[in-house]
């Protein structure tokens, strides 16, 4: 099994007032620089305790993720960790220029010496307000963008693209990547549509088990769809094609982990952290304290909630004009939390269910301090990784992955 760390670049200065976008007036440059430095240092720590790959994601206009261009962090890390496997999970493709995305991934592949990983996602709802992208076109732009990127990374001669959403008369990226035909390419699998698309186009898939994304109850169906569709298209995914992103809190004992979780409000629902909805109003509250469900929402947050829901509708393919009523439900899944032994057991159970050979961990979130995060990373690397490495790998077991369908 391969272990990755998805190190969120959170802002550790005084937080802004609630709501998205985060108001820039609250930014203290020194605090932002320290926050970015901590994030990069945490990756170096993770590397020293045995993590195999290092990833970043793209988010905009938000104190919770200082990462509008994750390529810069990935590139910086290549110089601090030469020879490391580094990737972006992922670029928000519908809001970006696919040819530019292909160019940057190819450059990253050279900076990593052919050890990069491509992740292409559709983004969280607020991203569609970032550059003004039509959310009803999200899936169409995404699917076309993925295929365009594949061609840009592999076509041997200059070519043009006459798409539905993208038109380029000339594409000839230099450099093309080191890895041939291209670096491993992964998309998020959070629906049957995405599972089928991944299977049909020889893509890896990532399942995110976190508050606000996917629960176990749907992952089994999506994985089945992915494998069956792939087989219809002439290939069979193995556990190496499947990544699971999990939120993880490791402490010396289960009791300490439980106490930390309760005190610091971990885990923080992902959608809330990114969109900053539902945070307590600024009146008398420190948003870094555990969320108080009785505190009134900020007026801006209340007004924005139906807008965000409308974007979710668009991204999900629900037709325009459908009243933006009830929020689309998310099912939270079990997280990794406890002593190293407990987390080890949780990983075994989860991996057996999901059949993944890549596990990407998120140690940040909520109000965890930098020291707590470093400790969690250290314990995982020193106590959990070595145990799992000695166990029978689920990696190449095609039969196991197929049998579990």
């Amino acid at each position, binding site marked *: 099994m391969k272990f990755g760390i998805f190190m969120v670049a959170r802002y550790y200065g005084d937080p802004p007032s609630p709501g998205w976008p985060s108001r820039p007036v609250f930014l203290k440059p020194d605090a932002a620089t320290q926050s970015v430095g901590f994030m990069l240092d945490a990756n170096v720590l993770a590397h020293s305790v045995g993590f195999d790959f290092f990833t970043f994601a793209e988010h905009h206009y938000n104190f919770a993720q200082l990462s509008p261009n994750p390529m810069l962090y990935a590139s910086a890390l290549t110089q601090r960790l030469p020879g490391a496997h580094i990737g972006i999970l992922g670029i928000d493709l519908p809001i970006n220029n696919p040819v530019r995305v292909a160019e940057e991934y190819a450059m990253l592949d050279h900076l990593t010496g052919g050890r990069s990983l491509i992740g292409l996602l559709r983004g969280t709802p607020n991203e569609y307000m970032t550059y003004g992208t039509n959310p009803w076109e999200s899936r169409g732009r995404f699917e076309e963008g993925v295929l365009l990127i594949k061609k840009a990374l592999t076509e041997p*001669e200059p*070519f043009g693209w*006459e798409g539905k959403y*993208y038109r380029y*008369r000339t594409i000839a990226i230099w450099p093309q990547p080191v890895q041939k035909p291209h670096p491993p390419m992964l998309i998020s699998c959070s629906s049957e549509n995405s599972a089928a698309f991944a299977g049909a186009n020889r893509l890896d898939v990532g399942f995110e088990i976190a508050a606000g994304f996917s629960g176990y109850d749907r992952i089994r169906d999506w994985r089945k769809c992915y494998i069956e569709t792939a087989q219809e298209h002439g290939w069979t995914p193995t556990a190496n094609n499947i990544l699971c992103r999990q939120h993880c809190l490791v402490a010396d004992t289960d009791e300490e982990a439980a106490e930390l979780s309760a005190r610091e409000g971990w885990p923080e629902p992902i959608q809330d952290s990114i969109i900053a909805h539902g945070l307590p109003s600024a009146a008398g509250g420190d948003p870094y304290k555990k969320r108080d469900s009785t505190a009134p929402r900020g007026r801006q947050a209340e007004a924005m909630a139906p807008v965000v829901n409308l974007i979710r509708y668009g991204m999900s393919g629900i037709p325009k004009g459908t009243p933006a009523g009830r929020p689309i439900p998310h099912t939270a899944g079990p997280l990794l939390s406890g002593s190293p032994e407990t987390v080890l057991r949780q990983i075994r159970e989860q991996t057996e269910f999901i059949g993944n050979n890549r596990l990407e961990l998120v140690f940040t979130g909520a109000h965890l301090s930098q020291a707590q995060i470093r400790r969690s990373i250290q314990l995982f690397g020193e106590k959990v990784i070595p145990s799992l490495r000695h166990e029978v790998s689920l990696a190449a077991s095609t039969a196991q992955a197929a049998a579990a369908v």
Partner: protein
Amino acid sequence: MTDQSVAEEIGSAFVEHFVDADGFRVRYWEAGSGDPVVMFHGGGGPKFTIAQDILARKFRVLTFEMPGWGASEANTRTQNLDELAETMAQAVAATGLGQYHLLGHSIGGATALVLTLAHPDRVRQLVLEAPATFRTGNVAHSDDPAARARAFRVHPERPPVFTPPGPEQRAKTGPLMQRLQDRPAYDEVVAARLEKLETLTLVLFGTEDGVVSPENGAIYKKLIPNATFILVYDAAHLIQQDRPEAFADVTIDFLERGLAFLIPEVSSLINP
């Protein structure tokens, strides 16, 4: 307008004509006015398309039925592409055209290319839609009707609805197609000639083409000095039929502006 009425309207502006050329009675249809665009069909025979209708609003379009296809008699005389290209060159000349844009699909594209090599002075600009000159990387044709249809059309339901040639048509055109395609998948002789072709050429391949692999597009780009190779997304072998507006858009832009079509001229100004 329903799909049915759209289907009935397709090609309604085209008027049928005949010419005698090279011992054949050759049928063609004409619509529109302006610069002439001559079109050669693919192995399925002539078929009116929405793309042709759009082209006919901008150009004088002449779409030919090559001898042996459609309603014409079985063609037992033509032995190879050179002969077919010469027959079609004479047929076009018989309409009175001296210079024209030439557009060919699949085997019609291969024919158009050979015609252009033989008569470069006649062809102003060349558009090749999934041409069958080079056929490297092709997978074997499937016997499953659904898979076979997908090789030709991503969207078989769009007008004109996809109907594969029936047994009578296949029996008539099969031997002719075999003779025309009795050459290597990478034809070295043609490849050598292409390096000297100066005609502005646009090569289009559908990303989902299951008949002639889109990877062949790069070959034309590599060999023809003034070629542009464009992939048409979400289209299979019959690009005009899968994505008529996209096909017409890029073809018209190329024919009207030549290589300047590489520059977008549509304004991105939202408001002054």
